[in-house]
């Protein structure tokens, strides 16, 4: 169970990235399958060549932002549909990742990594490592919360919330989308670099289906905690990521075949998406479908206005 918690906390970094695009920008970004592996590949090749793991992780973050930049440019300047732009980058990254690693995988056994570093500080692989990881992820969450409340962050939020409106206040929504995609994929690649160190290798196929893990984390977490404020929403994402790993762990303990993992993940996401529609989770989440809420009061007004005296004088 300790390893499930650790894994969940590592995945939480990626889930925060997915939250940025999926929830804040309202953009389903599939780049993450590729950029996650890019992060892992970058960190692995750098670490095996003697770079300090911390520096390697920073490099991984920037490789991720580059991937996000490409998807962003394809979508905004190239006017390619968001889903397709993400898929194009993801597929292209497969080859790029092979190039980065010079092969299909790189073992990190015996190398100095984040986790060997933690062990060096006397942090055991038990509740201690879980606590340390939680603190690290929580600090990252706080930084993200802070950013989303700056002038720039609010403009980013507004871009996903009401694009037309924020343009009328002088914000280039193209630039905001690119920024959001860069940050998101940076976080995803950072997560990939941490995961490579955690499992002791980087592998070309490690990112396949990752977007589902991210979506599951975001949806499950927010179905439980709601999204009333950014502070709560990002916390929900972290809890969702950990919960997801715990559920998978329990499923495996119960004797399910590890080969069925992806199927279970997909089923979990479908379940999380369908349950609110049937009203079961509605009581749990205070506000998960904000768009539906927001349009209703105005719509009532608009309907009520139909037979007004104004109509009589309309030319």
């Amino acid at each position: 169970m300790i390893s499930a918690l650790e894994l969940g906390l590592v995945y939480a970094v990626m889930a925060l990235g997915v939250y940025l695009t999926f929830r804040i920008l309202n953009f389903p970004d599939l780049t993450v399958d590729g950029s996650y592996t890019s992060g892992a590949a970058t960190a692995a090749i750098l670490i095996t060549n003697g770079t300090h793991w911390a520096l390697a992780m920073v490099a991984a973050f920037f490789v991720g932002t580059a991937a996000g930049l490409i998807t962003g440019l394809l979508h905004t300047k190239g006017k390619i549909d968001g889903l397709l732009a993400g898929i194009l980058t993801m597929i292209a990254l497969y080859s790029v990742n092979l190039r980065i690693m010079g092969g299909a995988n790189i073992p990190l056994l015996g190398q100095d990594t984040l986790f060997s570093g933690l062990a060096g500080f006397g942090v055991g692989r038990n509740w201690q490592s879980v606590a340390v990881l939680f603190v690290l992820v929580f600090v990252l969450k706080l930084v993200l919360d802070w950013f989303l409340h700056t002038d720039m962050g609010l403009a980013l939020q507004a871009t996903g919330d009401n694009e037309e409106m924020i343009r009328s206040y002088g914000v280039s929504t193209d630039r905001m989308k690119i920024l959001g995609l860069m940050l998101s994929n940076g976080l995803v690649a950072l997560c990939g670099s941490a995961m490579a160190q955690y499992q002791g290798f980087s592998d070309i196929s490690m990112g396949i289906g990752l977007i589902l893990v991210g979506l599951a984390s975001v949806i499950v977490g927010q179905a439980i905690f709601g999204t009333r404020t950014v502070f709560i929403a990002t916390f929900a994402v972290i809890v969702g990521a950990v919960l997801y790993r715990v559920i998978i762990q329990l499923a495996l303990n119960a004797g399910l075949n590890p080969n069925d993992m992806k199927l279970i993940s997909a089923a979990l996401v479908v379940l999380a998406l369908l349950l609110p529609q049937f009203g079961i989770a509605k009581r749990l989440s205070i506000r998960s479908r904000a768009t539906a809420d927001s349009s209703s009061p105005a719509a009532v007004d608009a309907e009520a206005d139909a037979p007004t005296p104004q109509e009589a004088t309309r030319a």
Partner: protein
Amino acid sequence: MLEIRDVSKTFFPNTVNERKALRGIDLHLDEGDFVTVIGSNGAGKSTVLNTIAGKLTPDTGSVSVAGKDVTKMADHRRAQWIGRVFQDPTAGTAPNLTIQENMALAFRRGHVRGLAAGVSKSRKDLFREALTTLELGLENRLTTKVGLLSGGQRQALSLLMATFSGPKILLLDEHTAALDPSRAELVTRLTEQVVAEHRLTTLMVTHNMDQALQVGNRLIMMHDGEIILELDEQEKAGKTAQDLLAEFGKIKGAVVDDKTMLQ
């Protein structure tokens, strides 16, 4: 302050659906002018507003704001001078952000958006003070998400947001049409108040002839992509909605006559 010269716009050119939305529009607004725009559906009222805001690029002609030619400038770049309120009350605010966050977004119009806190203590005081002028009690609900407000409240907030960051030009596109009569009256009153206070150069599209005569110092009537009638302050003063309708019928009749003559 606002200069539109010989602006034409054709939608779907060279197709069966070709529609000439604007046919050589000329319009000049001095600083502080408040012009109301009336006309039938498809007359080109909204197209004029969208051309000024930069949502549409005219086929010919030019648009300049405060002496600066903005014809080719992207909409979000000229937004630093141009405030807009849309017909749809949900269009002018971000529903999932709070009232104070929406105010912060509006507050940074024309400024670089950096990493300063969007809602600082001093800004909060400023927002509260501005919201007080609406007399809707929104100043006590700063952390309420805007999506929870009624249409009238959202439209009043949109109007405040569009104006309090000091645009040079205010564009109102039937911004009271989707509200019930009492809310429409409130928003109209607020509009007059805020335009007078900031001496805003304003262009207001409306379907309501009484409203068009009641507010503003000038009135233009559009039909089929052209300005067919212009009234200045004095000419406008004595007119009633009936007069306008009669005027409209006369000109529309003339158009019909032209057509019959061609056949």
